[in-house]
């Protein structure tokens, strides 16, 4: 009954007309896509019973493997059909790719496409790339910078970043002393923030000069500004941080089929559709944000990127930045940290 409809719950990108319209025409299908801006919210909706609404869910790397599959919210993919695509991706996605597989390594849980580093963004006219990379998270510990930076509101990502500013590795279990440090750091960081807001607000503020840099962000958030003619806006991955051997954090999106009792046959077709070099390029440059995609390993795909586009996604430093980044993961004591952070934000109120 659902072979002419497809519902996608995703991050900004897949819901753009450029990606969906050709698929709609080709399959004469009703495709609905809703974009949200954080992973837990999407997953909550499945938990709340919307598994009978959605066919595909697109979230960041740890959730499929660590949460959704164990909770029975998603279904595995047919390995024979989909694993071959991983072979054609950039080397880091070599199958069996960890984040696409179940914990026991038996099931393929999703397909990968977009990825990128996501630490902070500076206006290099105000703070040079070198200073930013060297000073790293300490930029926020310098009292002279109070009032000159923004915070991109980005739920759990703000939590990692505050841990990093506090000099603590986010992805381990924390002691009370860690939390004390986290708490004072969160208060300081929010007190000194000029603005907390979304990507458009951050870029607008960077461009107009309200702020010099902002916490949380990377290719994903800086690329539209860069592409719009502001190359001085740049995502930066610090040289070092409290995470051993890494300076920042990166993300990889995984798209999975929902455990929908009446899953649309179009779901898997869509997953294949976006592997097409042209479509992959469109996904990378969907209106809104611009990102590298795993399919760039394919020459046919790569050739579709213009120089401006490559500049926008900081292709020049992508490899080294990914190298320096720890992969996004779920913070074990996230709830406690989030509560502290929310309280800190509130305390900074009235700024």
């Amino acid at each position, binding site marked *: 009954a659902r072979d002419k409809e497809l519902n996608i719950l995703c991050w900004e990108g897949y819901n753009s007309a450029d990606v969906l319209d050709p698929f709609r025409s080709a399959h004469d299908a009703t495709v609905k896509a809703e974009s949200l801006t954080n992973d*837990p919210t999407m997953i909550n909706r499945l938990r709340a019973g919307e598994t009978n609404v959605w066919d595909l869910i697109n979230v960041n790397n740890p959730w499929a493997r660590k949460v959704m599959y164990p909770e029975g919210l998603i279904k595995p993919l047919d390995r024979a059909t989909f694993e071959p695509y991983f072979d054609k991706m950039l080397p880091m996605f070599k199958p069996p790719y960890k984040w696409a597989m179940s914990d026991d390594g038996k099931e393929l849980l999703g397909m990968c496409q977009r990825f990128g580093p996501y630490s902070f963004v500076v206006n290099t006219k105000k703070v040079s790339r070198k200073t930013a990379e060297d000073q790293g998270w300490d930029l926020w510990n310098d009292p002279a910078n109070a009032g000159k930076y923004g915070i991109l509101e980005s739920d759990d990502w703000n939590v990692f970043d505050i841990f990093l500013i506090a000099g603590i590795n986010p992805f381990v279990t924390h002691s009370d002393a860690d939390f004390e440090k986290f708490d004072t750091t969160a208060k300081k960081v929010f007190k000194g923030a000029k603005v907390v*807001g979304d990507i458009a607000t951050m870029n607008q503020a960077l461009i107009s000069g*309200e702020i010099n840099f902002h916490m949380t962000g990377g290719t994903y958030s800086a690329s539209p500004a860069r592409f719009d003619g502001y190359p001085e806006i740049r995502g930066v991955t610090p040289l070092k941080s409290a995470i051993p051997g890494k300076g920042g954090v990166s993300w990889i999106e995984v798209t999975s089929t929902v455990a929908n009792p009446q899953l649309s046959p179009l779901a898997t077709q869509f997953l294949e559709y976006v592997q097409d070099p042209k479509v992959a390029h469109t996904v990378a440059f969907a209106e809104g944000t611009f990102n590298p995609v795993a399919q760039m390993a394919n020459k046919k795909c790569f050739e579709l990127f213009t120089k401006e586009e490559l500049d926008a996604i900081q292709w020049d430093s992508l490899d080294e930045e990914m190298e320096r980044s720890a992969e996004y993961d779920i913070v074990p004591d996230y709830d406690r940290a989030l509560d502290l952070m*929310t309280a800190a934000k509130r305390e900074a109120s009235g*700024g």
Partner: protein
Amino acid sequence: MTTADASEALPPRAIARRRLRLRAGPLLSLPLLLLLAVGFLAPLLAVLGFSFSEPRSFALLAHPTLENYETIFDPANTVYMSFLWSLWFAFLSVCILAVVSYPVAYGLAKLFGRWANLITLLMVFPLFISENVRLYGWVLFFIKNGVLDGGLRSLFGFGIGDLLFTPGIIVFGMVYTYLPFMLFPMTLGLSMVPQEAVEAAGDLGASRLQIFREVELPLSLPGIIIGALLTFVLSVGAIAESKVLGGQAVIVITHDIEIAFTYAQNWPLGAALAVLLMLVVGALVLTVLRHLDLDRILGRR
């Protein structure tokens, strides 16, 4: 229908008529009441139920608990600040709105004559764009190198200081968004002031100010109260102003509720916060409405 057997003695037409006349009011109210029972009361009860469920659970009342409320009332929890900010903003907005709207309402009710309709219409249009988009328009206006700053810069060579991302701009945004909700009830209230009472007061020696204080203000009070109530409640429930214009300089209570329902993955806590907000708003609304004669306010033309 159920009494058909008992009334067999009367001609059926007469029965139908009598029933219709006796029950026209309750009968006609039924569909609406049904809608509100299913669409308003029941969801509120659902929220109430969730507020007593285990934190971070997604099942309703599997293990009833007061834990969510305990968390909120824990002295270490600072969520009370969000409540206070919201109430304070709402209070400020209402006061500013009352002052800002009064002259316009006065004009609409008493001065503009046949222009009043057109002006009202003009003021209604912007209401129909979702408020986020309109508020973003203000960001474009106030931001550095935006319409105001950039405009001044190009004309006079100097710009303006920081306006965005402050508590003040949040109140500004609320005043902007909710202006019509104060204005229209207030206009209704002012048009209830008989012109003759105003003239009589002047004739009896009252100065302009005395006329305002002794006659216009008290007689238009019902409309002003409705406007104040409406804008207060809307401002308490507002979220976009603090997010879009305020740059989250302040966290308001609805933002806390939203956080709980979204990335904090804690519906029961969010529900408990929502219940507390409902209590504040509901108590206020019911108390005030009890003292208003709606027939008089709405019926007066």
